[in-house]
């Protein structure tokens, strides 16, 4: 999972790599591995020891991509994407074999950062068609099938809504 914290430059990745039992886990954050011990845990909050330091967290409102929490009285907003590109790709029809769908649709609202193809280009399934920016994160939109770009329906710098057609691919 990738994380971006509001007002913090660095981006983070984080995952549990090992279950040590007795509520202890190994967690990998960027390139560092830490031991984490959970003390209490429910949907409202968590207390844990990370690298020998105690932390108390309250989970506030959360959406799929954004999480607001208060850690040790400090409010933090995290933007997350769990293999976000893949989900977008999948929802565009990319995972379905033999897809006859013409239109590549955007699964997220966002701003068009760049367009990687021009009309008439041939693309393979999974090739990047354009890059969108949403919630301060850049997401690549990939072709859902092999084919050629019949038309491009977006403009660089423009914005797209969820469900808008990005390109038609034959």
């Amino acid at each position: 999972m990738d994380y971006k914290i509001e007002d913090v430059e660095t981006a983070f990745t984080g995952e549990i790599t090992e279950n040590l039992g007795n509520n202890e886990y190994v967690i990998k954050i960027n390139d560092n591995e830490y031991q984490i011990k959970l003390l209490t845990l429910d949907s409202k909050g968590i207390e844990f020891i990370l690298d020998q330091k105690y932390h108390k967290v309250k989970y506030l409102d959360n959406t799929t991509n954004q999480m607001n929490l208060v850690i040790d009285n400090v409010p933090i907003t995290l933007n997350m994407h769990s293999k976000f590109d893949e989900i977008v790709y999948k929802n565009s029809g990319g995972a379905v074999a033999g897809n006859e769908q013409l239109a590549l649709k955007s699964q997220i609202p966002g701003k068009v950062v760049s367009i990687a193809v021009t009309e008439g280009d041939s693309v393979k399934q999974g090739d990047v068609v354009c890059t969108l920016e949403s919630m301060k994160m850049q997401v690549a939109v990939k072709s859902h099938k092999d084919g050629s770009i019949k038309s491009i329906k977006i403009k660089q710098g423009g914005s797209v809504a969820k469900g808008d057609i990005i390109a038609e691919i034959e």
Partner: protein
Amino acid sequence: MIEKVLIANRGEIALRVIRTCKRLGIKTVAVYSDEDYNSLHVKKATEAYHIGEAAPVKSYLNQEKILDVMLSSGADAVHPGYGFLSENDDFARLCEKNKINFIGPSADSMNLCGDKMRCKDAMLKAKVPTVPGSPGLVKDVEEALSIANNISYPVLLKSVYGGGGRGIRLVTNDKELREGFETVTSESISAVGKSAIIVEKFLEKTRHIEYQMARDKHGNAVHLFERECSIQRRNQKLIEQTPSPVVDQKTRDKIGELVVKASEAVDYTNLGTAEFLRSDDGEFYFIEINARLQVEHPISELVSGLDFVKLQLDIANGEPLPFKQKDLKMNGYAIECRINAEDTFLDFAPSTGPVPDVTIPSGPSVRCDTYLYPGCTVSPFYDSLMAKLCTWGQTFEESRTRMLNALNDFYIQGVETSIPLYKTILNTKQYKNGELSTDFLKRFNIIEKLKEDLKEEKTEKSESAVAAAVIYSEYFKSRIQNSTQNNSTWKNKLD
């Protein structure tokens, strides 16, 4: 003897009064509006009466309704707290007429304190220095010019009907004064239909220093030292401390004597506050008397060891002050931070709503006066003061570091608070060095510093925040089982 006190107020100050009354075996009567059914003062008082709708005019400012409750509940005294009816001399008079002991000055004295021109006049007669300027209204621009040249520029032209920055002009020479005189006149006429202008010396880099005063019904008066309240926003105090870093014992005694004179000049009784501006050259100028118990009274309690509400009750009972000035000694240092529900970055706009969780700080020499409890609500109808956090120390540094600890421990969920701002202020070298002035926030770019501090704080917490987010999502994918309930050994260690 007072046996039953009605508290014509709400919030933390109502609780403050109830606390002392309870200790002394005095019954308390709380009043509350629609908005305050679930407020702590309602629950803690001996009796509680509903007095009307949420809007203050329909409840806490409704004199007739409050009088009804006083009479029907059998209260023999009323404590007005601060704000609301506390400085309303009509209300004080209404209580006097109905033989209810108003815990505060007489209606006449209050009326005199509230009339800035008459009060200034009384001070001049008592030889208490006031801000140099016209003795009263100036009749025309020529008189304003002659006064301005007499007291020297820069001066302020003020409409007595102005306020909130309107009808006030800073001028630095004759030409500006002529122009300013016209603008202030027309602004005042367009706002209230009449104009009355006074001229006042403009003081730069001023500090707000006030003195606690106490005077009994037999004419004995003392001062209970000073408080410095220079850290302000929009002319409202944020942080107060005592003693002031610029008041030594000699100055304390000298100004203290003036304060006693000031209380005599307006025949003040009970506790009150004389407010002064101190200019950068060390001169003190009287501005006004606050005829009530101040918000920031706890810091004076901490350094004097006195219970001010008890003192108020004793004075109201006609008892003489139990001490003379020479008996009073200051002990240590105290700071108060007013924890407001407001968004510093939205120009201190109020932030209201439910507060699902609260952690109130504690520890040695930490005092927190608050109406907050987990599950309470911060109402949009009343002022933004949620809590008064005070710390005491043998040295200033001790009180400051205790305050920083307490601010770190204070957690209020659901509303924006001024806590981060105070952490930034208390960490500046200017605050540590006592370089205070009423324009402190602007002068030292505090809001910019606050932004940097918040960013740093977030960066520091980012790895653990990511860990918390990872756990959260794993938990919801049920990859982590919640078996922490059994994990009591660790829990107990941390509790």
